[in-house]
């Protein structure tokens, strides 16, 4: 496990505020720091602003008519929020977007190859990585020639993930990687994250609803609620927090409760709301 204090901060988000459409204030001062070589998790309920935070970092916000109006985003100490997403990819930061976003008309393999668009290290290397992705996701190899638009939801998620890996990034921003994946695949994806993180030193910032798995693999976590960071700390510590346990892990004092019983149980008050 990584000790956050001892490593350099790779990505730093300082007190950013994000407004959509000039009027909708979504992030109200979010600060994060992502240490080099770590896995940082961004947790929080629906609409907390996880996706928005990631998009702010990767500069994709502008294409949604959103704007960072305050605060700074630094990558390796450099201000990056004024550039284009492509600049950031060249710097080694790539985002896997929520909701898959495959290139529908391209085949699975072509989708993966677009991931290598910015790479300059030659075809052979790219092909090697392609094989690597196929070895992670054998299902994709079977479907390599089909148009991505016609693959199943989970397959598209694998495509999106594989496509990011193909760019040989230094940092990956993962938005809900586990969404729609079968249970053993969820584990597998996180195993891959771990392997890539440990093997190649890739830094991860992941937004995840599946708190359980996320906190098992992450080193550090931030919890977002309605546009603010309400809690952060090392993953192990968060896992033990009673509130986190209750709201995010679905554990009550006496272990996991059945979803059938939810009707009869009343919630404790929340932190904020």
């Amino acid at each position, binding site marked *: 496990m990584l000790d956050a204090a001892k490593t350099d901060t790779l990505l730093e988000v300082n007190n950013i505020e994000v*407004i959509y*459409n*000039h*009027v909708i*204030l979504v992030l109200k001062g979010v600060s994060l720091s992502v240490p080099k070589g770590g896995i940082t998790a961004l947790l929080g309920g629906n609409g907390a602003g996880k996706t928005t935070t990631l998009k702010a970092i990767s500069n994709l916000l502008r294409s949604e008519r959103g704007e960072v109006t305050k605060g700074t985003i630094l990558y390796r100490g450099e201000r990056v929020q004024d550039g284009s997403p492509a600049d950031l990819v060249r710097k080694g930061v790539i985002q896997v977007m929520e909701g898959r976003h495959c290139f529908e008309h391209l085949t699975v393999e072509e989708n993966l190859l677009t991931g290598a668009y910015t790479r300059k290290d030659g075809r052979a290397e790219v092909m090697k990585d392609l094989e690597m992705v196929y070895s992670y996701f054998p299902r994709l190899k079977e479907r390599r020639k089909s148009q991505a638009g016609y693959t199943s939801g989970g397959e598209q998620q694998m495509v999106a993930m594989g496509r990011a890996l193909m760019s040989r990034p230094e940092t990956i921003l993962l938005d809900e990687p586990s969404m729609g994946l079968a249970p053993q695949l969820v584990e597998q994806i996180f195993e891959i994250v771990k392997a890539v993180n440990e093997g190649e030193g890739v830094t991860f910032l992941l937004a995840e609803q599946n708190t359980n798995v996320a906190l098992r693999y992450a080193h550090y976590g931030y919890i977002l609620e309605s546009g603010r960071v309400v809690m952060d700390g090392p993953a192990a510590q968060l896992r033990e927090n009673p509130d986190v346990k209750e709201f995010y892990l679905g554990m009550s004092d006496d272990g996991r409760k059945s979803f059938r019983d939810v009707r009869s149980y009343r919630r404790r008050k929340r932190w904020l709301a």
Partner: protein
Amino acid sequence: MFYREAGDFKTSYRADSQTFPIRLDRMGFWAAMLIAYAVVPFVVDDYWANAVFVPFLIYAIAAIGLNILVGYAGQVSLGTGGFMAVGAYAVYKLMTSFPEVPFFFHVILAGGVTAFVGVLFGLPSLRIKGFYLAVATLAAQFFLVWLFNKVPWFYNYSASGQITAPDRTMLGIYITGAQTSAVAKYLFCLVILTLVALIARNLTRGTVGRKWMAIRDMDIAAEIIGVNPLTAKVTAFAVSSFFIGIAGALLFSVYLGAAEVGEAFGINKSFLVLFMVIIGGLGSIFGSFAGAAFLVLLPVFLKNVLVGTLGWPTDVAAHLELMIVGALIVVFLIVEPHGLAQLWRIAKEKLRLWPFPH
């Protein structure tokens, strides 16, 4: 906090689903109606009535019609000019064949005829989508223009193929023909526009409107939740063409007085109305008004400034006008792709928050 919706509580669903749920809006609406009906007719001169207000009213009708098709039902059409021509020729045939019937009914019937033609050309929309459909509607545009140009029956066998609107009255007042006063034209079009806008508003807030929007936003999902795409699309084409036909009928009979199909109802007309709809705001009745006003007024305004005030040669002014209109369109789309209506909405949201930024 100029603009407030707080304190505006509704006690029934009826009240909540009315056209202007917010009191301030309602007051604005009645003020606008009052000005349109009781002030404008007494203050405008011939130039403003004939060259600005009448075309604005007519184009607003056409824009509402097209907005139903493009903005609400999501079927992009470039056949507006052709459908307006159907309205114009229908009203011409009706006026000359049944002179004793009141002109108002001619206009409505012309709309009905256009609705029928619109449905015919709308049928391919079941299979053809997006820009393919847009281009396909050009088939209607070119075919209809050709037809009206070619078949002498449509223009009563006149030597040149031009149609000229005969004099017609309503309640003893001339509505068409040379004797018509500008105010009569204005009021007649205004009444029709008011009716059209009301109907459009009613349709778009109810079941039919939801079917259209469902088809627009995601046609497959719409079908799966129970929207019959055939009837939804066909009604959209019918209603839209109905309004467009009325606009064509008025454009010819009340505004121009004479028309030649290729000239008055060419493809440029299709583009012009589409512009109005998009600049105004897709899927917004108010936007149709705003778009029509903008595109009718802008050239007049530019001309008056460039030629009238600055005294530039007309050709330089005309070229600059093209450049300015083009550039403005682009600028508008960049500033607010959802049109003037959305700008207005944002402005209201800002006003509501004022003086706080968020």
